[in-house]
C-alpha cells in the first residue's frame, strides 16, 4: 500500500518535470506539435456534462494532467464547459483542488483557465490580460480540442497560419474541434501586446501546441 502510493508519487514527479519541459517547448516553438505523456498514475479523470455530446463524458486526461503540473496553492484556476464557468464543488474543480490545493477564482483573477471543450463561448474575453507594468500577470488558457495535425486533410478543420517569434516563416496547423469564434477571440486578446493570454491546444490523443501571445494567427 505504502509503496504503491510512493510509486505513484514518484511517477507524478517525473511526469510533471517532463510535461513542464514540453509545455515550455510548446511556447518557445509555437505550432510545434508535442506529444504529451500518458498520465497513467492519475486514475480516471472526472466527468463533465458536454452539450454537444448530450451526456456526461470524461475530461481530456492529457490536458487535465498537463494543467495539474502547473497548479499549486499559489495560483488559481477557472474551469469552463459549454461556455459556462464551473462552480466550486463541480467534479472537475474538486478533482484539481484535491490534487493540487488550487483555489477556484473568478475569470478576471484566475492564473489558468481550462476549457473542457474547444469553445470558450466568449469566456476567453473575461480572462486577465495582465497590465503594462506586469504583463506576466495575465492568464494562460488551455483548450481541449479533438485533433491537431500539421497537414491539412479535413475540409471541416480550422486552418491556422502561424508566424512570429519561434517560427521559421509560416507554420500551418489544422485543428478539429476548436470553436469557429475562438480564433477571433484569441486574436482580439493579443491586440494590446505585450498584454494577452497565452494559449495551449491539446487534442484527444495528447498532442499539444502552444500559441503564445507573440504568435500571429491568420487563416
Amino acid at each position, binding site marked *: 500500500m505504502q509503496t504503491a502510493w510512493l510509486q505513484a508519487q514518484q511517477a507524478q514527479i517525473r511526469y510533471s518535470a517532463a510535461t513542464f519541459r514540453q509545455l515550455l517547448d510548446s511556447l518557445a516553438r509555437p505550432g510545434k506539435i508535442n506529444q504529451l505523456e500518458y498520465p497513467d498514475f492519475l486514475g480516471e479523470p472526472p466527468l463533465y456534462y458536454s452539450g454537444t455530446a448530450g451526456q456526461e463524458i470524461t475530461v481530456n486526461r492529457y490536458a487535465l494532467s498537463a494543467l495539474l503540473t502547473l497548479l*499549486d*496553492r499559489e495560483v488559481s484556476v477557472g474551469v469552463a464547459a459549454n461556455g459556462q464557468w464551473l462552480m466550486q464543488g463541480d467534479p472537475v474543480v474538486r478533482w484539481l483542488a484535491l490534487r493540487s*490545493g488550487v483555489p477556484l477564482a473568478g475569470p478576471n483573477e484566475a492564473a489558468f483557465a481550462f476549457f473542457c471543450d474547444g469553445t470558450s463561448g466568449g469566456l476567453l474575453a473575461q480572462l486577465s490580460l495582465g497590465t503594462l507594468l506586469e504583463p506576466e500577470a495575465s492568464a494562460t488558457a488551455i483548450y481541449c480540442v479533438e485533433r491537431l495535425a500539421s497537414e491539412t486533410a479535413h475540409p471541416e478543420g480550422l486552418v491556422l497560419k502561424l508566424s512570429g517569434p519561434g517560427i521559421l516563416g509560416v507554420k500551418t496547423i489544422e485543428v478539429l474541434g476548436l470553436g469557429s469564434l475562438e480564433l477571433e477571440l484569441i486574436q482580439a486578446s493579443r491586440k494590446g501586446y505585450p498584454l494577452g493570454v497565452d494559449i495551449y491546444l491539446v487534442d484527444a490523443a495528447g498532442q499539444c501546441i502552444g500559441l503564445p501571445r507573440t504568435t500571429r494567427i491568420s487563416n
Partner: protein
Amino acid sequence: MGYVATKGGTQAILNAELLLEYFRLKGGSSPIQTVQIQDQMRLAVDRAMSEGSLYAPELAALALKQSEGDALEASFLLRAYRSTLPRLAYSLPSAGADMRVLRRISATFKDIPGGQLLGPTRDYQLKLLNKLLVDESDQTVREYLAQFEAQALKQISVTDTKRPTGYYPKVADSMREQGILAPLQAEKEAEPYDITRKAISFPAPRSARLQTMARGDVGSLLALAYSSVRGYGDAHPTLGELRVGYLPVQVAHPLTGELVEIGEIMATESEMVSRVTVFSEEAEGKGDEVPKFGLGYGFSFGHSEVKAISMSILDRVISAAKENGVHGQSGPAANEEFVLQHIDGIEASGFTAHFKLPHYVTFQADIKVLERSQAHEALRQSQAADRRDALTTSHKLGPLPIAPGQLDDDEEE
C-alpha cells in the same frame, strides 16, 4: 575586429566539468558521506538552508558536498531546487515563545524570567586549534559520547523536573510589562508580503524586509549591521534575547481545517533592543508619547547567531529610520532600499559571476567609445599644441620688426 559569436567551446566546457569532478576526487581519500556533513558540518548545513531558504538538512548536506563546501554555491543549488517545488500548504504563524529552547541568553538583565541557558556554544572557548581532532577516531567518539551521556543523566536527575523542559518566557514580554519597550504594533497588511511571488518594491512592508533578510547572506548582513553599530549610523543596541531551539511548524488540515503539527525546525531568533533616536526636528515635537525602547527582530533557519543578531540590528535601524522619516541620513544601513537590494548572496554572487561570461560585443562597443574619445583627445591636444606653437612663434616674432603688410594676417589669427 567586428562581431564575435559566443557560440562554440562546448567541448572545452564539458572538459572543464570533468576536470572539476577530478579535482573534487583526486585526493583519493574515501568519499565523504552526506550524513557526515549533516552531523559534523552542522553550521555549514544551517547556513546553506538559511540562505537557500529551504529547510532540508539532507539536501543541504548534498548541496555542500556537490559544491565542495562553497556556501554560496550550496545555497544557490538549494534555492534552485526550491523553485521547482509546488506549494502544498502554508504554515501558520508560530511565536518564538513556543520554541523548545536549547540556548537562550540576554544581555539586558542577568536575572531574566526562566534564567540564562548557555546551551551549545563556542562563546567561551579560546581560539586555539584543537590538534586532538586530527586523530579523532570512532573509538574516541564513542568514549566521549558515553562519558557525556553518563554525566548528563546524573545532572538531569538532580534538576527541577516540575517545569516542562525547554520552554521559556520571552524577555521582550517582561520588558513590555515593565513599560520600557514599545508595545507590539498590529500588522497593517492582513497577509504577509511574499517576496518569492512578487518583486519587492520600496518602501517595503516590514514582512518583506524580514523575509529578504531571513534569506540574506550572513556576510552581507553582518557587514551592514557592523557599519551601523561601529560608527556609520547611530544604533546602540543591546541584545534583549537570543534563543536557539526547535520551533514547531503547524498547518491547517486541508479538509478539516484543524491545526496539525507537521514537524519542527531548528531556528535562531534574536531580539535587539535600542532607544529610538529622533533625528528630524519635525518628529521631535510631535506627540506626547512616553519614550520607549524599540525592538529589532532577527530570525534564521538553523543555528546562526551572527546572522540573527545582524538581522535584528538592521531591522531596528531601518524601522527607526522609517518611523522618523529619515532614510540613509544615519548611514547606509538605515537605507532600506540599499540594504535589502544588496544582502541576497545568490543575487549578488550571481551578478558578480556573470562578469565571467563573454562580454565580447559589449567590450567592442566600449573600445569604440574609448577610441573615439582618444581620437577626440588627441585632436584637442594637437590643436592646443598648434595654438601654443602659434603663440610662441608670434611671441618670438613679436620683438622683430614686422613688415607693414603682415600685420593684418597676424591679427586675424
